[in-house]
């Protein structure tokens, strides 16, 4: 497999940083963005301190990528924030931040990303969702709602860009030990894991496995799909 040009959002830590690491190991040229700096340093890695909710900043980043690499082969919309709280106790400002990052962030990066991807012979968009959507987890209303929107974006984007040779899919991890869920009570997470068909904690490698499946050239007919880990459906 030849080296790919990949943009990973939310690359500063967690799943995003881990995916960046895997792609670099695979020989890819990787661009990452996050609101904070990244620990990753590599000759094939470029990090942008960009908030995906900021349309102008995303546009600037994509223009820089266009100049540096001529385009992209893969866009991984991973950036996301979570505010685990009962809806009645969720501050409206928290709700707005979740929607800004999780929904508008995906929109902004896809809006610009399409322009970079469409000349790639194997163009792929992969969005990150969550099992909180199908499980309708209480205490995660705004987070799950934002990711439900991401799933709709995934399916409709797939229809709109299919003719350009771009696929768009999503992967929904079960709980993984990252900062995103660090404040969620462990008993709640254990109970969630226990109701999975495969009652185990997932790892970043499980996510990477699904992502790589979507990225394979042979997956050219796979689009508009949402794959959850752990047997959740």
């Amino acid at each position, binding site marked *: 497999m030849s080296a790919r040009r990949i943009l990973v959002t939310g690359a500063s830590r967690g799943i995003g940083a881990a995916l960046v690491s895997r792609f670099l190991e695979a020989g890819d040229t990787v661009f990452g963005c996050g609101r904070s700096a990244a620990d990753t340093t590599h000759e094939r890695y470029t990090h942008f301190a960009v908030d995906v909710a900021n349309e102008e900043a995303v546009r600037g980043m994509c223009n820089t990528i266009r100049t540096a690499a001529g385009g992209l082969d893969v866009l991984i919309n991973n950036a996301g924030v979570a505010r685990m709280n009962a809806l009645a106790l969720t501050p409206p400002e928290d709700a707005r931040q979740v929607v800004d990052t999780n929904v508008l962030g995906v929109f902004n990066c896809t809006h610009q990303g399409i*322009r970079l991807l469409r000349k790639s012979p194997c163009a792929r968009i992969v969005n990150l969702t969550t099992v909180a959507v199908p499980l309708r987890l209480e205490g995660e209303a705004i987070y799950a709602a934002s990711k439900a929107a991401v799933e709709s974006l995934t399916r409709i984007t797939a229809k709109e860009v299919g003719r350009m040779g771009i696929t768009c899919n999503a992967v929904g991890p079960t709980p993984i030990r990252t900062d995103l869920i660090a404040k969620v009570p462990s008993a709640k997470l254990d109970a969630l894991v226990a109701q999975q068909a495969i009652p185990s904690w997932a790892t970043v490698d499980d996510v990477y496995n699904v992502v790589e499946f979507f990225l394979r050239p042979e997956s050219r007919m796979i689009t508009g799909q949402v794959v959850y880990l752990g047997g959740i459906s």
Partner: protein
Amino acid sequence: MTREDIQGLVLTAVAGVNASRDADQQLPVTPDALVFGPGSPLDSLGLVGLLVDIEDALRDAGHEVSLSDSRAMSQSRSPFRSVPTLVAYIDELLASPA
């Protein structure tokens, strides 16, 4: 960039789109041609590809322009109805402050 320059750029993009379209789905490459809407074989997804091609060409010419517009898919008010409306729209965008 003059209107003639913009028109040339748009027509080049239309011709480029034709390269990947079937013979019976070709778009006319003329200064007064319809682009999108009744009477044009270009559907909404085809329009997206054309507009992104035009954005690319404008960027290559040193102009950062977004052709995203809330009226894009409107049958009656779209600035992308024809080559003349599209040229006028781009001219307006280039003249407006960034």
